């Protein structure tokens, strides 16, 4: 467990020492929040759907968790190029523990990011239903963070270079985000898009976080949790396996 802890700590230290990364990763959610929130707010309201900011804020919080978590896989490739990966892979500890430490570290960073974005949403007028459920929403952020950090690590473990990883990420990240119900309700979508939204694990994260923050849920919190836990477990297992097979 010491192994997992020290590698978790490493991810956190690296994050907090990189000021541009901290600031840069907050700029994007803020941009989405302000431009979409105020841009589409009045149309949404006229269509009779109520307060758009209330609908959008939980989605943007999870967007920042998703982006940070998935892209933290890039650290594996970074470490491979700068050589540090060899140091951990030659060590007499299980690669499972190494993968776990890295993943939980990346997930912690992504969750902290989500919490900061949550605070930003308060500034632009978002009001969650009650404080206890806000704490529950932090738990969901962490679960979603673990899920996508594992996925990112899994993909990164099979790649040698940055370009390949970026390409796959760009293919993955936008569809996952757009077809999750984070920006607009999925109910009115055409059948095939609805189908994608249904098999998209982020949809259940968005649904769960909306359930906790504003008390509105489509699938129900139980189904959300079952799907999130199952998919996270699968990604973790596949990520660990793939990480344990890395050769340098």
């Amino acid at each position, binding site marked *: 467990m010491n192994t997992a802890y020290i590698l978790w700590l490493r991810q956190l230290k690296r994050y907090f020492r990189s000021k541009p990364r901290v600031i840069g990763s907050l700029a994007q959610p803020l941009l989405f929040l302000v431009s979409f929130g105020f841009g589409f707010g009045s149309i949404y309201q006229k269509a009779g759907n109520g307060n758009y900011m209330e609908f959008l804020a939980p989605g943007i919080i999870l967007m920042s968790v998703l982006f940070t978590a998935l892209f933290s896989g890039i650290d594996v490739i970074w470490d491979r190029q700068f*050589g*540090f990966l060899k*140091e951990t892979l030659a060590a007499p500890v299980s690669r499972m523990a190494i993968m776990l430490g890295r993943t939980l570290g990346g997930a912690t960073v992504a969750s902290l990011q989500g919490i900061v974005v949550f605070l930003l949403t308060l500034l632009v007028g978002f009001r969650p239903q009650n404080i206890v459920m806000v704490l529950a929403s932090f738990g969901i952020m962490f679960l979603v963070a673990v899920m996508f950090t594992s996925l990112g690590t899994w993909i990164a473990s099979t790649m040698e270079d940055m370009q390949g990883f970026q390409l796959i990420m760009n293919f993955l990240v936008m569809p996952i985000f757009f077809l999750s119900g984070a920006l607009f309700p999925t109910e009115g979508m055409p059948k095939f898009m609805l189908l994608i939204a249904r098999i998209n694990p982020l949809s259940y994260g968005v649904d769960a976080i909306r359930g906790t923050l504003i008390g509105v849920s489509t699938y129900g919190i139980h189904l959300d949790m079952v799907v999130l836990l199952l998919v996270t477990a699968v990604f973790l297992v596949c990520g660990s396996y793939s990480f344990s097979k890395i050769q*340098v």
Partner: protein
Amino acid sequence: MAEIISVKDLTKRFKALTAVDNISFTVEKGEIFAFLGPNGAGKSTTIKMLTTLLNPTEGKMTINGFDPQEDQNQVRQSFGIVFQDPSLDDELTAWENMKLHAVLYQVPAKEQNQRIGEMLRFVELWDRKNSLVKTFSGGMKRRLEIARGLLHHPKILFLDEPTLGLDPQTRNHMWEYLKRINKAEQMTVFFTTHYMEEAEKIANRVAIIDHGKIVAMGTPEQLKTQTGKKTLEEAFLALTGKTIREEEASPLDALRARRRMHHH
């Protein structure tokens, strides 16, 4: 004496390239053994296979009685390694890099701080222990890597071109220290080099490797007698048909040295 490393018919092919071509050798416990050869001869690839980082295409290996493919953890517990290319975390301090290594290599918690302090003083980086590694020069990084490789007192120490980019003084200093623990703790040292005098002065036995094959093996004296030459350098020329000097200045090497010096 007992064999601590034994390699039989080891081969590694990357697509069309045969990096290591059917080599066999053994290293005795407590021995200092050198792989001498030009760049691209297959030295690093062999070390990677011995240290579980790369699977061989064919062949058998035993490290401290264990198979690097079957018993990875036991093998990893048996050695320390200093890699040819940088392997530090630049965003962490010298101390943090050492601490991470101490935890990964299961140095007892009570001894960690004392040993880290000892090793940092030994490589003269104690006053810079709280500086980020990215602010270090190439030579300083190398010294830190060596300190790190010795931190957990391994049974076998692998050093891949350990003195590349080090000034002669630090080089001597490092070898003196290594020979001391080699004697005191019976630590086996396996190193690769393309410096003649290093192989001749430091190693008990030398294997000359070229194009993935071991062309000759023995004590420096035996190699000289075998070829009827006065120096190891001439023996090398006789065995491989080239001097190692021209290889020394190969573009890849120059690039590596530069990368070490100016790496950020």
